[in-house]
């Protein structure tokens, strides 16, 4: 490819948002043929810095030089012209169009007013062959898996001639196997002379893939390290500003069976059967991790357990009592609690104050009301106690909860649910989108709760998290449980295959045929 960018140099980049210094004098450089990781917690400024390079944001200070020449990008179109592309976390694809149509979207064709899909298809096949990006140009994007859609995004960027590609948390939505595939593709691209920026907060991915690692914290650059030989805890310290406590390893002494799920079937929102006969049991004093790519029934299972979704058939026993047809309030009274997966949608009322959010369920508790009148004094005392106990950072109890960070909101939701001393806790993706400090705290709290004898069902897409916390791990795939293992009896490889629906011993999935590219 002609005109590959050899070097990008960002010097002294400053970006202000109203009242926030998102990028504080950051230097960043990238060479052709390397993967440069941008590591940092949520809100550290990684995406902002890269959106400046991609022309989505305008810089307030500093400069960008491409191959030594200072450039200024006013829009993504500008930077695309210069050869810089970006793959966003949320794909920008039209599901009802084919791959080729999606790639052609917004591109001018040689035939002026006519859509030249044939040329596009040929070019896609070339790229696909050159980089190992297996995609059929004639497939509808809506029918593709998440990993395949991501490949389409990469093809789009390559098609537009991007030699520098920014990947914004590309692995967040992938299974471990898909991550491996992606890394192979990325390494190939590097070999072909592309420069890649890899935004992430997952340490092991960064060290496995990248050549250099730049860590950002609170909008400042904390340093750049070569990936080879860098210590994990050093990176964590740069990201978080302190060392993390190691989770101590615990004895596994399960108590009585608290929650028993027998052949539970339920339909999803679209009316199709989403849970196809789930069997699981959770014991007192254990954490059962539920691994799976999101969308395989975890959300529906959690909703069935707490009583928001109707169970079509099967039994849910809580301490031997069938609760499958009970109302949510009865289940809570019997000792169930849930930390919902969609924190802001299902867990909190954004416009309510911190204090009000503590009482979404408990305001009907006799302790916090006199007749129909709320007892503000007791409510404030209880909220204050929880906020202190769970180190929720909030200016006041009256602050609307939406002004808090994701981690603090999650801590508050957790405080609210655990304050009832539940016997069974469903923790659905409790640390998703939460910064490392708060994650660590949430993990410790979950373990404390386990040691106190609560039966915990933990769903997560993050296998590392499941490994660190669970006593047993179950894998869910398309509404069935693929297997349940003691933590020490399994490994990431096995779990990853099961998450993709492949049982050990199954024949490996045939490669996708690229029919239109043959011959």
């Amino acid at each position: 490819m002609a005109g590959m960018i050899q070097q990008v140099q960002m010097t002294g980049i400053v970006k202000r948002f109203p009242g926030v210094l998102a990028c504080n004098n950051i230097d960043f450089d990238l060479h052709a043929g390397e993967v440069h990781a941008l590591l940092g917690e949520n809100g550290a400024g990684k995406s902002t810095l890269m959106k400046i390079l991609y022309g989505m944001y305008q810089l307030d200070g500093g400069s960008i030089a491409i191959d030594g020449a200072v450039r200024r990008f006013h829009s993504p179109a500008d930077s695309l012209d210069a050869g810089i592309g970006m793959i966003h976390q949320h794909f920008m694809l039209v599901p009802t169009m084919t791959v080729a149509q999606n790639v052609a979207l917004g591109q001018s064709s040689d035939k002026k007013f006519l859509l030249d899909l044939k040329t596009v298809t040929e070019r896609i096949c070339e790229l696909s062959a050159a980089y190992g990006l297996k995609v059929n140009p004639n497939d509808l994007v809506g029918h593709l898996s998440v990993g395949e859609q991501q490949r389409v995004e990469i093809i789009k960027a390559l098609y537009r001639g991007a030699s520098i590609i920014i990947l914004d948390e590309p692995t967040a939505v992938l299974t471990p196997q898909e991550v491996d595939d992606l890394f192979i593709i990325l390494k190939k691209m590097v070999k072909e002379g592309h420069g890649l920026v890899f935004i992430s907060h997952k340490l092991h991915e960064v060290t496995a893939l990248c050549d250099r690692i730049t860590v950002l914290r609170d909008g400042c650059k904390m340093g750049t390290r070569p990936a080879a030989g860098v210590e994990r805890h050093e990176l964590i310290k740069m990201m978080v500003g302190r060392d993390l406590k190691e989770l101590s390893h615990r004895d596994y002494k399960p108590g009585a069976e608290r929650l028993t799920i027998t052949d539970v079937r339920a339909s999803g929102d679209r009316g199709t059967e989403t849970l196809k006969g789930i069997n699981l049991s959770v014991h007192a004093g254990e954490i059962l991790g539920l691994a799976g790519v999101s969308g395989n029934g975890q959300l529906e299972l959690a909703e069935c357990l707490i009583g928001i979704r109707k169970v079509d058939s099967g039994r849910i026993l809580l301490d031997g009592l069938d609760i499958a047809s009970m109302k949510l309030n009865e289940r809570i009274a019997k000792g169930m609690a849930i930390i919902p997966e969609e924190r802001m949608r299902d867990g909190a009322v954004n416009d309510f104050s911190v204090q009000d959010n503590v009482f979404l369920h408990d305001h009907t508790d006799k302790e916090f009301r006199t007749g129909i009148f709320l007892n503000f004094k007791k409510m404030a005392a209880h909220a204050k106690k929880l906020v202190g106990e769970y180190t929720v950072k909030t200016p006041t109890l009256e602050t609307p909860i939406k002004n808090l960070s994701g981690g603090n909101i999650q801590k508050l939701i957790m405080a609210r649910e655990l304050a009832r001393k539940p016997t069974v806790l469903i923790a659905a993706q409790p640390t998703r989108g939460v910064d490392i400090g708060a994650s660590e705290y949430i993990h410790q709290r979950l373990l404390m709760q386990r040691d106190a004898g609560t039966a915990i069902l933990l769903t997560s897409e993050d296998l590392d998290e499941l490994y660190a916390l669970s006593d047993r791990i179950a894998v869910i795939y398309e509404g069935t449980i693929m297997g349940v293992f003691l933590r020490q009896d399994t490994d990431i490889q096995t779990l990853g295959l099961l998450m993709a629906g492949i049982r050990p011993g199954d024949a490996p999935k045939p490669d996708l045929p690229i029919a239109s590219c043959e011959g």
Partner: protein
Amino acid sequence: MPMAFMLQRNKAAVKAPKKGDGFEFMLRTLVPFLGVFAALAISAVVLLMLKTNPIVAYSAMLQGAFGSISGLSQSLVKATPLLLVGLGVCIAFRASVINVGGEGQIILGSIAGTWMALSFPDLPSAILIPACMTVGFIAGAFWGFIPGLLKARFKVNEILSTIMLNAIALQFMNFLLQGPMMDPEGIKAGTFLAQSARLPESSWLARLIPRTQLHAGLYVALGFAVLVYIFLWRTTIGYQIRAVGLNPNASRYSGINVPFNQMLSLTIAGGLSGLAGVIEVMGVHRRILEGLTGGYGFTGIVAALLGSLHPLGIVPASVLFGGLLVGANTMQRAVQIPAALINAILGLIVLFVSGSALWIHNIIKKRKTAAVVLAPVKDAEQ
């Protein structure tokens, strides 16, 4: 871990939406009125095109609405039902239910109250008046309960069902006034006017100022403004209604019955409109007659919005709209402009007021981001 938490204020929270610093409070109170002025300014252009002097027109309006004891009383008379309907709309809106059924609920309330008064004319006022109000409230509440139930059970859109119930109520009233409830005096005299018999004097609300229509119903409405405030922000039911309105999902996850609260809020809204109807009958007309509702069921929605859906904000908003209704009539008479233009002016005011609400919201949001020391640039929502 360090106690990173500091409580600046320890006293129990009264979570009124108007809370905030001085600037925010000023914005929220001042800008809607600026919106009214802007709407009047644009209307002035239209008036000029009609070769009417806007200054003359507006001074006639102001004079008519607030310039004299009788004008002011008349404005307050109109503000009374607006306030009650607006309070109901406010409760429903807080549960994110839109009550467009005020007209029908007013009618049902007035019919029930009239029936009560005509059936028990010998009861003393101290019993009859509260009884009429109660019956009127219940009848209106029933008319709000129907769409509430339909929404809760079958997810029927309440905007459609309340509007349809308006039509049913109107025809029901027409039927009653031309049949069973028609004034016997009118039948005797052969006039056959579509109106009910005159209410017994024991059911009349006291007039507050001689030779005006201003009646004690105003106090009732003001009392309900305070009650609704307490209801929404101090009781468990009010808490649930607000939670349901702000986030039905989180409410569901916490065991709050979303459909029930929506139904309840519509029922209470209906009750308040019904009360407006019976008070209008007992205070102003002393009988039911055609056109009794006077569009209060719709204008009340606007008053509620102008009062930023806060019970205590709806009080001045109702007075303003009462004044606009009275003043518009005076203006029409003074400068001879078509009645349609009056409606257009009121419409412009609504537009500007709701628009300014959006504008304020954006400004405050911007200030909030500016005030936060380190706002999350992007809270991962993968």
